[in-house]
């Protein structure tokens, strides 16, 4: 058996489960099936641990045993396609959404999405300082072309479920007053040293920040009466990290 055949057979044995026949001539301190089970366990357990680390609240919502089954099904259905495992789990929220066994928890997929977004924000660096000086130097004639830029790695989320409230309730083990019919909008902002903050937004606030994300200049937006106050709060909270002047060329790029 050549190297390619050996690896194809090994791979088939790892993915096939403990009852699949083994077409490899191997030796070791235990029968072949048990030896391969050690590798099967390593592969499934290491990816399960990765999912557990990224989706701790999702896990708490369904319990350890169910989460293990869900993870195993996901690992076998959606194999790892690159060596770096940081992006593994991106499809987990969709997988949950399509999994009939989670039908009784319709918000579970949204919770997994929130946790995935949180992880992505945590992985980003936060090193921007808002350029107050440059902003003050923008001539009055160009001020309506300003669009504010969001902190690198910020993640938007709009859910028909109160995901942020559920997330907080699970952290604090305090479920009283949860209105499951409430939709929620939020932004997740990177914080220094592998952390991130979740900020709940009203619908107008969400629309305004999304417009900045889409590089819309102030001239095209209907600003709320408390815009200055909001802007100042978002800058000090690190949600807005800079600004740019949106010219016609930029808009058409």
């Amino acid at each position, binding site marked *: *058996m050549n*190297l390619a055949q050996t690896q194809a057979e090994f791979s088939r044995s790892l993915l096939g489960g403990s009852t699949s026949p083994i077409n*490899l*001539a191997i*030796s070791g*301190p235990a029968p072949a099936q*048990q030896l391969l089970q050690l590798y099967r366990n390593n592969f499934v357990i290491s990816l399960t641990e990765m999912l557990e680390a990224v989706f701790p609240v999702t896990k708490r919502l369904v319990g350890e045993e169910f989460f293990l089954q869900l993870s195993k099904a996901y690992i076998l259905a959606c194999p790892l396609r690159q060596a770096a495992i940081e992006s593994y789990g991106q499809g987990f929220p969709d997988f949950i959404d399509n999994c009939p066994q989670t039908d009784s928890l319709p918000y579970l997929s949204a919770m997994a999405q929130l946790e995935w977004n949180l992880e992505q924000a945590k992985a980003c660096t936060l090193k921007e300082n808002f350029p107050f000086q440059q902003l003050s130097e923008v001539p009055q004639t160009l001020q309506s072309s300003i669009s504010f830029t969001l902190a*690198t790695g910020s993640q938007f989320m709009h859910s028909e479920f109160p995901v942020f409230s559920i997330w907080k309730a699970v952290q604090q083990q305090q479920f009283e007053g949860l209105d499951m019919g409430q939709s929620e909008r939020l932004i997740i902002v990177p914080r220094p040293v592998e952390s991130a903050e979740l900020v709940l937004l009203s619908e107008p606030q969400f629309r305004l920040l999304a417009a900045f994300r889409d590089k819309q200049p102030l001239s095209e937006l209907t600003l709320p009466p408390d815009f200055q106050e909001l802007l100042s709060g978002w800058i000090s909270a690190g949600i807005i990290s800079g600004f740019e002047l949106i010219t016609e060329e930029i808009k058409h790029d």
Partner: protein
Amino acid sequence: MSDTQTILPQAIGIGLRSPHFQQVLEQHPDADWLEIHSENFFNPASAQRLILDQIAPQYPLSFHGIGLSLGSTDPLNSDHLKQLKALVDCYSPALISEHLSWSSVSGQYFNDLLPIPYTSESLLHFSDRVKQVQDYLGRNLLIENPTAYLSFDHSEFTEAEFLAELQHRSGCDLLLDLNNIYVNSINLGMNLSNYLETIPVAAVKEIHLAGFTRQQLDSGEILIDTHGSRVSDPVWSLFCAYRQRCQAPALIEWDTDIPALSVLMEEADKAREYQQMSSDWQRVSA
């Protein structure tokens, strides 16, 4: 690119893992060098890279890879290689290492270091791949001996013979994990002395020290290379004995159930004590 870093002979390092980032930055523990897992630092815009930027000027570094899948019959992953080169060029680490293993086939990755059969075909394949990577990086690779829970009946070489021949053909250096050698000696009945005699000592540029756990199977006990406990007594003895021949920098490696930084530093101190003991024995016997 800055000058390549250096790690001195007999230097004792620790594996840098994310739970200790902040503490290492703040307390600057007395480790002679640090080893990172290369893949965790590929993203130049990540928080990890910000940490590495701060740590790199303070410690010599070794970049230890787990994802190149050198033994795989799939083509080398050019994206992975590009990212590794960018990282290496950015920090010029003292050492760059990978494993004698494979972890992917037909585009499916297993996040594990899987065993290869030690055949002439594997040797040719593996040494070609090592040469390709070395040429691309412009740096020598260290290849680490793996833990294996099985051996292929059609192997033509022992693991040590394979590593020695690989080193000879590709010009690579070696990273000797003494825990892996011990675990394999128990699980697969490998002879420790023969193994160490076969390895070309001049090519050994790094030593790993780690812990294992015991697992009970129906057929008996097996040692599992968990890298999740203190270095065992038999591995310390092996280190002490091998130190008389090899002065390569040694590392305390701990990857699962990561303990407080102080525990890693205790293990590093222990390595220094065993190193001293070994040196004393050598003087007495001379």
